[in-house]
């Protein structure tokens, strides 16, 4: 057996591990939080309110202060998981909810039971805003700066760590 073929598996394994490590690290440093929308204005959408009698929600809301958009639904289990953290975040910045493919009755029960962290809730039965925002699944959260530009996207349920390490540094003025 030549020397090369004996070492070959080891070399292959090193290369293999390196690629996987690269992938894992890029995953960790926010690979999956990227979005082509970052740095851009909130895309235009207009949704009726999910609570009868409230105002509509459209993309002109998000100017003049930091705010958050949270895509959620009463059928979404992980949304229940992040709910308490949204309640906390709502004390810092206004959160606008986009209620995705939901029933108004179910939503009302959900809010009555767990509390309402949202300033306004848009009712997105057909996924109009959800598609415009390029959402991959509920829950998903966007942070918008004072100029109305999207500065951060977080797919999946947020928790205290995300608020502390990702959101807070971005919304405190430098």
């Amino acid at each position, binding site marked *: 057996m030549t020397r090369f073929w004996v070492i070959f*598996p*080891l070399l292959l394994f*090193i290369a293999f591990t390196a690629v996987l490590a690269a*992938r894992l690290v890029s995953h960790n440093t926010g690979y999956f939080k990227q979005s082509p929308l970052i740095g851009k204005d909130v895309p235009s959408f207009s949704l009726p309110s999910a609570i009868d009698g409230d105002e509509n929600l459209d993309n002109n809301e998000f100017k003049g202060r930091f705010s958050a958009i949270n895509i959620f639904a009463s059928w979404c289990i992980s949304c229940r998981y992040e709910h308490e953290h949204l309640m906390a975040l709502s004390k810092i910045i206004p959160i606008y909810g986009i209620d995705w493919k939901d029933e108004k009755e179910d939503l009302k029960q959900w809010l009555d039971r767990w509390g309402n962290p949202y300033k306004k809730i848009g009712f997105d039965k057909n996924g109009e805003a959800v598609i415009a925002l390029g959402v991959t699944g509920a829950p998903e959260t966007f942070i918008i700066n004072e100029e109305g530009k999207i500065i951060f996207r977080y797919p999946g349920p947020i928790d205290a760590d995300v608020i502390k390490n990702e959101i807070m540094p971005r919304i405190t003025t430098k």
Partner: protein
Amino acid sequence: MAANLGEIVLIFALLSSFLQFYAPLNKSFSGRSLILQKFSAKILLISLLTAFSCLIYSYIISDFSLANVYRNSHSFKPLLYKITGSWGNHEGSMLLFALIICGYNFFYSELGRSEEKKIILCVQGAICFGIVSYVVFTSNPFERLFPVPETGLGLNPLLQDIGLAMHPPMLYLGYGGFSLAFSFSVAGLWVKKIDKNWARDLRPWVLISWSFLTMGIGLGSWWAYRELGWGGFWFWDPVENSSLMPWLVATSLLHSLVVLEKRQEFPAWASFLAILTFCVGLVGFFLVRSGVLTSVHSFASDPYRGIFMLILLAILFGFALTLYSLRASSLKAGGNFAFVSREGGILLNNVLLLTLCGTILLGTLYPIFLEVLVGERVSVGKPYFNVIFTPVAFLLLFLGAIGPYLKWKKDDLAKLSKKRAIPLLIPLLFFIAAFAGIWWAKGGFTLYAPALGLAFWLLTAIIADISDRIKLFSTSIKKSINKLKDLPLSYYAMVFAHIGVALLAISITLLSAFEEDKELLMKAGEKTELAGYEITFLESKLGQKEDYLARTGKFSVSRNGKELAILLPESRIYIVQGSSTTEADIYYTPITDIYIVIGDKAYETREGKEGFSVRIYVRPFMNLVWLSCLIIAAGGFIALTENIKNRGKKKKK
């Protein structure tokens, strides 16, 4: 309470696995280190058994103060699924995996033989330590929740199935045992002694793991077939691939161990395969659990788990492969052999199996590599795998009919074909008949024709060899039967495994050639026809069962005006989880399955029609697929029996 106990014993497990690793390294233990190692292995197994029982107990009493129970269980869940739910999630299944590895470790420490037992147990200790730390530090099933929730989120409804309950334990019984192949290899390379005895001592452990893995893969695809409602049994999903890859490598390891035991040939190659088998299994685990790949099997993925696992992989296999690269050339190989010989045949078999494994790995990882290197996103699916897999599988089928009947060291193909002129003629005739038959049935040339022909070629070659060995027709029937009884068990093992492979190829070919699908909107009272079966949608009902709401469709299946069965497929909504599943109902006949899935009510369609979306699949020869998996696994168990029997004989002497 149980949870506290569970956490404490996990720490015991960590300590004892470390002791098992450390004992032979410390000189002051010398002389007693094997006793110490055996003791550690015992404590390790007891600790993990206790931890696992604690987890199951927490599930039974629905202790929602555990995050794991909260996320995956619910008080309304049937008791059976409460229990099986304990390993239907990431943390629980990792604990089960650790338990099984430590189980193998214990049984090896008690029953196993080897001149290098101390080193093997030392490496095993390191593996157990790694896996148990993975459980404790990144996937602790006993993590607490505060405040304690009143109720749980429920088990993913797809997983509430008996197939799933059995599938992971089987698979892990496979992967887990391969850890011993790894340890044997490291120990053998360390002392530069990989020989006949090494192969003899390792073989039973690989056999048992391989047989379990075969059954595990079969069970997994059986579950997918019944539960996912796609009417298929193999989807080339990354998770499935990661169970098939170690199977392919282990299969070639089994073959090369035979050569090493009988002929002292390929020591370096066998040690490499032994490392690779466990490596591929753990890499599969890593790919699935780290979130590097996306798959239909959703496991909670957490990047820290990925990093931990990758470091563990790098240490174990980095060490083993470095050792391999240093020692491989100094291993002594046996005599020479000609290309046309049993050794040559097995080498070719190994190369082909590894090629299959490599192409699957490439197909599974290609999207990742492309993304890391170029930043592009693609997905590799069924077309790739079918195109790559088919020609290699054809070659395997073709050569499988020749290789096992070659003599060791050197053989002559011309001689073999002369000696076997008649037995070779039979497979050839079958090949041509099968080829022609399916050509005619499909009305033209398709790949099904050569596939069926080759599968029959393999099958009849086996039968021809048996009849040759027992001198069927050239002596009296009675003598032939006696000869049949006298054939060694190892021969039977080979025959079973190879017949299983041939049957699997036949059933998959026939299935792909003759399956039929139909998807349509149906209203109650409507009829449709597929593959000669008449299917009538009788009515649909809404009802509530244990923990879900179900819309049940009632269908009658009839043929030539005679009613064969009533099928009740369901579309379920699980109240707690808020998710929905479709529950197919299947009419099983010995040959054909009729498989109906009912979906949601659809009001608007292009034709302006309303009704339920109904999918009907006719799947011929499905049972043969499951049966062939069992036959292949049976081959492994038969070989194991022989191994144990021989061992008993030697002891008596």
